[in-house]
């Protein structure tokens, strides 16, 4: 075990993956010599050479297309999109190509080796072009897998699982936690399961669900609720696609209540999918409406970020609304 922050854990995962399989290749804008603007690929070019860790020209659609091609050949590209806000020029390559590659060819070809890594989310005074959480845009796309880690231990295990996964994965990294989240991380190779939610805390009154950087925020709210005598069950979804409806439903059948929190705007966010599924799976168990605590339906603001975000107070209020319904 070693103490690592999330960037170190990610860097360590990439290092292990590149050592293990020479098909693993890391690239993206400023990813090479410099090691990425956040330094997630630090030292990898030194260690594995310029051919396997390199800068690309400034074109996200090119990066994604290039990654699709490499993966189709059988390699395991790990492509970085510098900010999740800039993944949209690659949307066509990801949604129309990556996601449909295996299906459309009848499995003659596939890009299963592919991972897109991208820092997402707010909390860094980045305004609407350095704060977006676009997971829901991709969650409507059969063929993709979507993973979001909450801490260094999760980041390493889930990233290694994503690289090993026979399906293409978008790996969203909560950049707010890059240096802020520190924890014990095994130095050896390990994988954590994709598609499985994790129950972080057992409780009986209400289920509180989130992912990524929001886990810290809901934890705060859950502590406030505990002071009010409310017992929360806390779940980290971890994978958005596929998502673990069974674990969530089992919890809600027990607690009878669900509060979902995400950073992205409410309308069309992934909480809607979860709520729609759970109201059906748990209809007779629900004792209050499913609550969604999300960003407002606006671009991510700058000056009024505090007001905008799905913070612990709003989450606490939703928990209390839910239990007092």
């Amino acid at each position: 075990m070693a103490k690592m922050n999330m960037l170190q854990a990610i860097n360590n995962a990439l290092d292990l993956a590149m050592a293990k399989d020479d098909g693993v290749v890391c690239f993206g804008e400023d990813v090479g010599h410099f090691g990425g603007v956040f330094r997630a690929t630090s030292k990898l070019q030194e260690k594995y050479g310029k051919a396997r860790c390199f800068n690309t020209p400034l074109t996200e659609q090119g990066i994604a297309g290039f990654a699709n091609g490499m993966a189709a050949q059988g390699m395991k590209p790990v492509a970085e999109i510098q900010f999740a806000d800039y993944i949209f020029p690659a949307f066509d390559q990801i949604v129309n190509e990556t996601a449909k590659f295996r299906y459309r060819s009848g499995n003659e070809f596939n890009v299963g080796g592919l991972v897109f890594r991208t820092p997402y989310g707010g909390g860094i005074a980045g305004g609407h072009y350095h704060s977006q959480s676009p997971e829901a845009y991709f969650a409507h796309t059969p063929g993709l897998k979507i993973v979001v880690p909450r801490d260094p231990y999760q980041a390493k295990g889930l990233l290694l699982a994503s690289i090993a996964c026979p399906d293409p994965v978008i790996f969203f990294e909560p950049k707010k936690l890059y240096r802020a989240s520190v924890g014990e991380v095994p130095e050896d190779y390990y994988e954590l399961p994709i598609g499985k939610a994790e129950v972080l805390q057992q409780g009986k009154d209400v289920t509180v669900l989130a992912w990524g950087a929001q886990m810290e925020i809901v934890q705060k709210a859950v502590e406030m609720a505990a002071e009010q005598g409310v017992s929360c069950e806390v779940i980290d979804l971890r994978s958005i696609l596929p998502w673990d409806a069974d674990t969530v439903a089992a919890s809600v059948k027990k607690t009878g209540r669900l509060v979902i929190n995400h950073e992205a705007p409410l309308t069309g966010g992934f909480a809607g999918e979860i709520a729609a599924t759970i109201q059906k799976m748990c209809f007779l168990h629900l004792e209050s409406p499913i609550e969604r605590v999300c960003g407002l339906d606006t671009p991510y603001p700058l000056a009024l970020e505090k007001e905008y975000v799905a913070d612990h107070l709003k989450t606490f209020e939703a928990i209390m609304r839910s239990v007092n319904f």
Partner: protein
Amino acid sequence: MTNPNNATITTVHRAEFTASDALKIPTLRILQDDGSLYDGATAPELDKDTALKMYDTMVFIRVLDERMLAAQRQGRISFYMQCLGEEATTVGSAAALSDQDMIMAQYREQGALRYRGFTLEQFMNQLFSNEKDLGKGRQMPVHYGSNAINYMTISSPLGTQIPQASGYAYAQKLRGLDALTLCYFGEGAASEGDFHAGLNMAAVHKAPVLFFCRNNGYAISTPANEQFVGDGIACRAVGYGMKAIRVDGADILAVYQATKMARDYALKHNEPILLESMAYRLGAHSSSDDPSGYRSKEEEALWRKNDPIARFKAWLLKQGWLDEAADNAKTEQLRTDILDALKVAEKVAKPGIEHLISDVYAEPIPALQQQLDELKAHIHKYPDAYPITAGRLD
């Protein structure tokens, strides 16, 4: 002073524009209509077997196109795309490759596909979306592909294969394979952002790709002069620091020669090259299109005379490699074979219901498996409404 701008800095002191047509790229022509070579031209080294295989492939595709367009008009298949007028372009270039080279096509390159060995049955199975289709009946007709013969399955979104070709070729280079990637695209698709991304990335990362533009004058109804202003597509190469060559797309010797030379160079130097083949899309864009809405019969008639097959045939005859009577008989036989294969393929069952969800992921995710189970139960309840699958749900 160091030059960080990555440009050759030569100096002038009087302001003058570089002209918009400062670069002129000539067209390589070797073969004349009558089967003789142009003065000063030499034929590429081409043995008799290869030459005849090229010719047979062109004829095969011509006859297939005729028949399948007719089949589409009869309502037997839903959609079709011909390559009339461009047979030399795709066959000539495919013939210059090694079988290990990957081909990434747009959709009008059945010539290359056939040259690689895609069988008549395979064509038919794809066109009829039946359960023997390698693509499991999932894509519209003409979206062929085959791993075994290194022909990437076609995808309808235009231009997407261009940066993919760069990545594929980069992987070939990393793997140390003695193979490159040839990427076909139309002059219309060359307007997509992916074109720019793909060419630039291949140049920067030294990926051995032959970017092969079929400039056939039209993108559906849009003529090339409403598509771009530059001098064709080849002149863009210099912007990427890439070599270029332009050929007469109806001249199979020129296409073959240029592609061969480009392949040798690209593999030896790990460099991409841009080729442009000038032809004319003689048929409609697709079976859904009617060109009379946007071009004249006269224009088409002029180009119809410029037949790549007739030209190559004249050369083969001159070489004494072709027996015209035998060739005619063979073509007749081909017509019959195609019709027979068509009749077989249209009777093959559609893919089974499990293929509604297979290949979305390597293994179906649980939610999808559940959706399939529910669907099966539903079909059991309403078998008449789902005749393709109802009888064989397992």
